[in-house]
C-alpha cells in the first residue's frame, strides 16, 4: 500500500510540474491542482497508514490499549484541502478573467508587464 501510494504521489508531482511548464493557462491551473493533491496525499502517507484502528479510547480504560491511527494528518489534510479549494476556485476565476481581458490562452503572450519601458 505504501509503495503504491508513494508511486502515485510521485506521478501527481511529476504530472503537476509538467502541466505547469506548458504554455496554456488552463493547464497551468490543472497542474497546480495536481500538485496540491499530491501534497495532501503525501501528508496522508507520511502520517503512517494504519488500517482499522480508529483513535478512540475504549470506555473502560484511560489510555489507548492498542495501536491507533494518528488523527493529526487527517486534520492537516482537511485544512489543506479547504485552503487549496479556495485558492483553486480563485485561480479558475482569475484565468477566465485573464482570457477576457488579454484575449489569449497562451502564457507567452502575457509579457507586457515584463517589458522595458
Amino acid at each position: 500500500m505504501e509503495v503504491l501510494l508513494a508511486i502515485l504521489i510521485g506521478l501527481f508531482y511529476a504530472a503537476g510540474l509538467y502541466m505547469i511548464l506548458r504554455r496554456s493557462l488552463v493547464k497551468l491551473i490543472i497542474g497546480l491542482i495536481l500538485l496540491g493533491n499530491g501534497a495532501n496525499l503525501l501528508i496522508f502517507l507520511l502520517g503512517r497508514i494504519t488500517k482499522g484502528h480508529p483513535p478512540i479510547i475504549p470506555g473502560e480504560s484511560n489510555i489507548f490499549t492498542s495501536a491507533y491511527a494518528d488523527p493529526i494528518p487527517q486534520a492537516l489534510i482537511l485544512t489543506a484541502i479547504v485552503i487549496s479549494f479556495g485558492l483553486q476556485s480563485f485561480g479558475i476565476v482569475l484565468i477566465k478573467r485573464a482570457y477576457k481581458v488579454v484575449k489569449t490562452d497562451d502564457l507567452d503572450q502575457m509579457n507586457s508587464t515584463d517589458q522595458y519601458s
Partner: protein
Amino acid sequence: MIAQIVFYPIIMQLLLAILLLFCWKWIKWQKVISIIGSFISLGIAIWLFSTTWTQGTLTVQAGNWEAPFGISFVSDTFAATLVLLTAISGLAVSVFSVGTILRARLKFGFLPIFHFLLLGLNGAFLTGDIFNLYVWFEIIIISSFVLITLGGEKAQIEGAIKYFTLNIFASIIFLTAIAVLYGLTGSLNMADLAIKVAALENRGLVKVTAILFLIGFGTKAALFPLYFWLPASYHTPPSAVSAIFGGLLTKVGIYALIRVFTLIFVGDSFLENIILVIACLTLFSGALGALAHQNIAKIFSYLIICHIGYMILGLGLYSEVAIAGAIFYLIHDIIVKTNLFMVSGLIYRIKGTFNMRDLGGLYAKYPRLSLLMLIPMFSLVGIPPLSGFWPKLALITASFNAGNYWLIAAVLFATFITMYVIARLWSEVFWKERKELPKMQNFRYFETLKLEKKIQIVGPIVFLALISLYIGFGAENIQQLATRVAAELMDNQHYIQAVLGDGYN
C-alpha cells in the same frame, strides 16, 4: 493573565476586518473605521512590544492545550518587533490608501481585505506552530491575490497570474516540507521540532527538508533564482497596495527563513554556504535589474530583491553580529520600502506617469516635498547617518570577522549600484528640465486635490520618514534591540524553554 495580549493584535485586525465588512456600502465610515482601528492596533502593538521587552518571551497555548500538542502563540522580541513594524506600516498605508485609492476599488471591499492581510501578517509573526504558519501564509496570499487583482486592468491581471502561480507553488513546496518533517518527527510545534530534529539520525533527509523550506520561503521572499514574479507584478496594482506588499509581504518570507534556520535547522555549514551564495546572487541580480529600467515603481521592485540579499547574507553568516545586522536591516527596510512605494504614488499623483523619461522638474515646483522624498531614498542607499548605513556596517564587520572578502565585495557592489540608481532617479525625476506632458482627462492631479486629501497622501510619508530618521539617528537603541533579538535567536534553548516550560527533556 498578561500573556493573553499575544492574541490582541490578531483579534484586533480580525474584528476590524469583520466590522468593515458590515459597513460594505458606507465607504465614508469604512475610511474612518480603518484609520481609527489602525491607530488602536498601533497602540496594542506598542503595548505587546513593551511587555515583551520588559518581561521576556510571552507564550500562550491556544485553547489551553499543553505544548507540544496544541498550537502555541509566542511573542519573543523578534516577533513583537515585527508586529510593531506591521502596525506602523499598516497605519501609514491605511491613511495613504484612504487618500489615493479610487472609489471604485473601495466599493469592492479594498479596506476589509487590507485588514485581513494585516491579520495574516500578525498571525504569521506570532504563531509557534509550523502548520499554523502555513495557514497564516495562505490567509496572507489569498488577501494579496484580491488586492493585486482588484480593479481588473490588463497589466494587473497579467501580473496577478505570475504572482498567483509562483505563490501557490511556493505554498505547495512549503506544505511538502511540513509533510516530510511531520513524517520524520511526528510533531508540528516549532520548539518541539527543534529538539526532535536535532536528535534525528537521518541527517540526509533533514537536509532535504531544509532545502524544501528554503525553496518555499525563498520563493515568497523573492530570492535568486525564484524572484521573477516580483518585478512582473509589484508595479501593477495601485501604489498603496505596492507599498504594503513591498514593505511586508516579502519580509514575511524572510521572517520565516530566519525563524526556521535559527531554530530548527541549525549548525549545518552546507546550508549556510548555499544561503551565502544565494544571497550574493540575489544582491547582484536585483541591483543589475534596477539599472535596466525606466519605470520608477519597477526600479523600486528590483531594489526590494537586491536588499533581500542583505538580510539573507546575515542569516548565512550565522554569527551574532551578522544576525543583528540582518535584523537591523529588516527593521530599516520595512519602513523605507513602504515609504518608497508611497513616494512613487505621490510622484504619479503629481505628474501622472511612472516613466523617468517623461518626469522632471519636481524640485523646481515642489522643493519641500522633494526634500521629504529625499529622506527615504538616501536612507535606502545608506548615506550616514541615515538608517541604511548602520546595518550595512554590521554586515561588513561580520563578513570581515568571518574572513570572507567576497561577501564584503558583494555588499559594497550592491550598495554602490543602489546609490547610482537613486542618484540617477534623483537627477531624472527632480533636477531634469520639466517636460510638458499632455493633460489627462479625469485624472486627479495632486495640485487640484483638496487640502484634506493632500494631508492623507503626504502625512504617511512624513510619518515614515520621521521613523526612518529615528532609526538612523537613534541607531544605538535599534542596535540594542537587534542585538537582543540576535542573542535570543542564536540561543534556541531560550525559545524552546519559553514554549515547553522548564521540564522538557
